[in-house]
């Protein structure tokens, strides 16, 4: 019965749509031990590999859904989404932190794309979410956040609403109250300490049909 169904859906797809030329799977490009089959369909094997890579923070349905979205954004099936393809989403381009995020997501293959988004899963814990925020601030990837790093993010967010002097003053004052100085560097542990136990609401729902 199930074989019959499978055969029917496959053949109906052939009749309803002209055959697309086989597309190299973006998963095969990133999984060194994959079968290397040229298909644009996710296999169970691929899904499990991706799930493992994102520490099981997404269900298999969500990964399939994300794959459809990935293919939708990746227009010429290159296996990654380029910066201008991200910017073609108006709601993303309007976001004040879009340039910083672009540096993190530009050119990611599907596995890493899912890993990036896994911090936004409902199952992600505080550390994973804080880790992502830390990486957004730490644009030069040296593992520590300086006064200027925070100032740059504030600049992105507040734009024309505040002058540079106002921003600096605010930051110096707030850092002083928390026990840091202008010259301090914040590590990931400091970040975790600052955020403490207060909840962090950073969740995105993956639309699953």
């Amino acid at each position: 019965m199930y074989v019959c169904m499978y055969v029917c859906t496959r053949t109906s797809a052939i009749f309803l749509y002209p055959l697309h030329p086989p597309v190299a799977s973006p998963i095969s490009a990133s999984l060194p031990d994959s079968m290397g089959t040229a298909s644009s369909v996710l296999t169970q094997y691929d899904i499990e590999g991706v799930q493992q890579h994102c520490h099981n923070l997404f269900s298999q349905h969500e990964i399939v859904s994300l794959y459809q979205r990935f293919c939708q954004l990746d227009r010429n099936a290159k296996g990654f989404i380029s910066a201008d393809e991200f910017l073609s989403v108006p709601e993303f381009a309007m976001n004040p932190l879009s340039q910083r995020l672009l540096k993190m997501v530009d050119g990611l293959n599907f596995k890493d794309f899912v890993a990036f988004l896994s911090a936004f899963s409902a199952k992600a814990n505080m550390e994973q979410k804080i880790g992502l925020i830390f990486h957004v601030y730490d644009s030069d990837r040296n593992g520590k956040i300086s006064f200027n790093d925070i100032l740059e993010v504030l600049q992105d967010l507040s734009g024309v609403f505040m002058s540079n002097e106002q921003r600096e003053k605010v930051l110096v004052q707030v850092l002083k109250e928390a026990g840091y100085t202008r010259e301090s560097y914040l590590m990931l542990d400091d970040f975790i300490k600052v955020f403490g136990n207060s909840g962090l609401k950073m969740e995105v729902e993956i639309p699953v049909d």
Partner: protein
Amino acid sequence: MDTPGNLKTSISELDLDRPNIEDYLPSGTSIQEPLDKLSLRDLLDISPTLTEAAGAIVDDSFTRCFKSNPPEPWNWNVYLFPLWCCGVVIRYGILFPVRVLVLAIGWIIFLSSYIPVHLLLKGHDKLRKKIERSLVEVICMFFVASWTGVVKYHGPRPSRRPKQVFVANHTSMIDFIVLEQMTPFAVIMQKHPGWVGLLQSTILESVGCIWFHRSEAKDREIVAKKLRDHVQGADNNPLLIFPEGTCVNNHYTVMFKKGAFELDSTVCPIAIKYNKIFVDAFWNSRKQSFTTHLLQLMTSWAVVCDVWYLETPKSETWRDSH
């Protein structure tokens, strides 16, 4: 000027959507409610903005407008599958050849009348244009027949008046053909390559169509001028513009581009809705070429659509609603 010791602000939880740093504006620009002080944690918390960005990456309303939903296969049981097979045989084996024949006949008739008229009546422009217009109408009717198109027109037919512009939603290139078979319109289209481009430069020229090239920068002013001239001329076909600028999947509309509304003329809207049960007429130009799209239409049962000629709203409300 604020002194560092007097920095107070309201808590960001009032408005998670906005960056909380806005509460730090100097007095006079925001309502200062002295609650707790701004903590480092709140300052560093960019999670609302990040959540919005991730939400946009995962799903956004603009891309949804261009999604072509694959039809669900309904032929998966023992009873329906043979019926579906019969359907395929009828569609590909009987209907398709008949339609190709109809289309071929249509083209033969059209070309054999159009070319002589075009060459012989060079001098009598008015008469030539009239005949060419009716011939274009005829070939459009043949096209529509070749997909077994069932088109229902609602509303008053557009009359030829100067300073009148028609706007319609855009699902596929066939929108133009469906509208053209009822009334000759002049369209503004992008110049396409291939056989479509050939059609554009020869036949559609006679109906008064205007071409533009998306990639050429100077093109805009030239085209804008051509549009204005066309609209002023009383003898020209009414101008049809698709203000969405691209093909959308007939479930949503995309925000209109304003060019159509700056021409200083009355705007008459037309709505085209395709019935999805028969065929999904959305031409996803990223996925299919126009030829493939036409072939898909010709091997389906029918193209059923409704065309509504709508009333012209007052110009202010039109601009506001879009």
